């Protein structure tokens, strides 16, 4: 361990090599027709498709619109999940009676595959944006809610006791102690929740959509346009990593005391 910088540099190098190797293998198996190009399109094809989609869009809708609408759905659903799950979860954790009412409902629906109840949502809410957003919302709600309940239970009892001894009670105690004390866990759960919602994106855009990244992949797979599928997957992969990195950066800023409790 000579030097930290060298060490990190070496590792980035290795990661790069790994991806270079993956691309090489990809190139070789397609170049020499080791598999049908229906099954694995060549890198060249994928790049061409990518350029075409960037330039002309897919199905008459530009790539940015596809990306935008998907992100908008994700954003609205996540925002709704945050503003509902956080207070409800904190209340459930703080007032055990609220918890007794809400907990078992969340525990019941949480393990359900979203596709199982998507039909029900469509029957209830129709095929518009509301059912899509609700599906994503439900996917994002549970992790945040559960984390909030657990976070309240894990608050250092000294935080609460010393606040009370300093004269805090009721609202002060909740907003100035309980909420910030849970914030690190809340943030972790938001990252999880957004990830889960993102994973549900394709399901949500599977029915009666004509735009969105997920729909693009689904539509491409309907017509077996494997190069479009690959482009879609690569865009989704990169977007997913970027979203998580963004949230991580935000977390580091907002919950600067994380790990120091």
């Amino acid at each position: 361990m000579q030097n930290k910088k060298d060490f990190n540099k070496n590792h980035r190098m290795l990661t790069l090599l790994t991806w270079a190797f993956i691309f090489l293998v990809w190139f070789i198996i397609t170049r020499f027709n080791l598999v049908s190009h229906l099954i694995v399109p060549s890198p060249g094809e994928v790049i061409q498709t990518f350029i075409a989609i960037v330039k002309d869009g897919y199905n008459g809708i530009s790539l940015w619109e596809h990306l935008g609408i998907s992100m908008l759905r994700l954003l609205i659903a996540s925002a709704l999940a945050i503003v509902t799950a956080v207070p409800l979860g904190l209340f459930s954790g703080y007032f055990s009676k609220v918890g007794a009412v809400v907990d078992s409902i969340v525990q019941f629906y949480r393990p359900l595959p979203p596709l199982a109840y998507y039909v029900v949502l469509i029957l209830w809410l129709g095929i518009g944006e509301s059912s899509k957003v609700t599906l994503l919302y439900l996917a994002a709600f549970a992790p945040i809610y559960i984390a909030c309940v657990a976070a309240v239970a894990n608050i250092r009892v000294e935080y609460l006791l010393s606040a009370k001894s300093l004269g805090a009670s009721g609202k002060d105690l909740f907003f100035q102690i309980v909420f910030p004390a849970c914030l690190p866990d809340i943030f972790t759960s938001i990252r999880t929740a957004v990830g889960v919602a993102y994973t549900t994106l394709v399901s949500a855009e599977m029915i009666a959509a004509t735009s969105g990244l997920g729909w693009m992949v689904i539509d491409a797979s309907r017509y077996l346009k494997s190069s479009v599928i690959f482009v879609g997957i690569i865009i989704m992969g990169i977007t997913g990593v970027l979203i998580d990195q963004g949230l991580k950066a935000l977390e580091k800023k907002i919950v600067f005391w994380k790990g120091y409790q």
Partner: protein
Amino acid sequence: MNNELIIEIDNLTVDYPTDNEPVRALDRVDLKICQHDFICVLGPSGCGKSTLLNVIAGFTQPSDGTFLMHGQPVAGPDRQRGVVFQSASLYPWMSVRKNVEFGPKIKGLPATEITRIASHYLEQVHLLEVADQPPFQLSGGMKQRVALARALANEPAILLLDEPFGALDALTRIHMQQLVRKIWQQDQNTIFMITHDVDEALSLGTRLLVMSKCPGTIIQEFSVDFCDRAIDEHTGRVHVDADYLALREEILDLIDV
């Protein structure tokens, strides 16, 4: 003991509920605390010292007996009784200053007054220069000084310290003892402190309570005055003399099992 009576505990018993039968933590404890007392409580681990402190703080309700403060029963924790725990319970999301300002702010004092109070007590614990840092950047001793300042900022009638220096190294502990002693002498506070360290109790307290094993009760009380008479002007350390050593041995014999 010609000072005002602050706290009066009579026949106090505390049982903790468990799945089986309740655990008796305190058994018929009587205690009076007056203005400017510096009480140090010693006793074996698990004898109920923290339980006694928690009752006084208002965190735990007595199962039996009475606990009066200024002649009134106490419903729960309030700003009359400031608490410092062994491990810092500072709020990491607030700066050092905000931690100290927390009590006055809750009280609803005007902003200038809040700032003045916080500065005053931060100054007293020599931490004005780190006022804007988050508490997790401080060393253990500094954290406990912030906790002390935070409790003092409310100007409580009594300070309750539960092994406040237990997690500190021996050197830092000596410095903390000097600081607390100085504050107590200057501000004429009333302090109720739990400690495991006989030397600490001897060099700080005016009254030493020794408790028995569980269920805890007070088996002996010593009135001491080393803190007043025997402090080296220069180093702030207690002069160890024969009296001191004899009392030390006596207390060690009492609690050593």
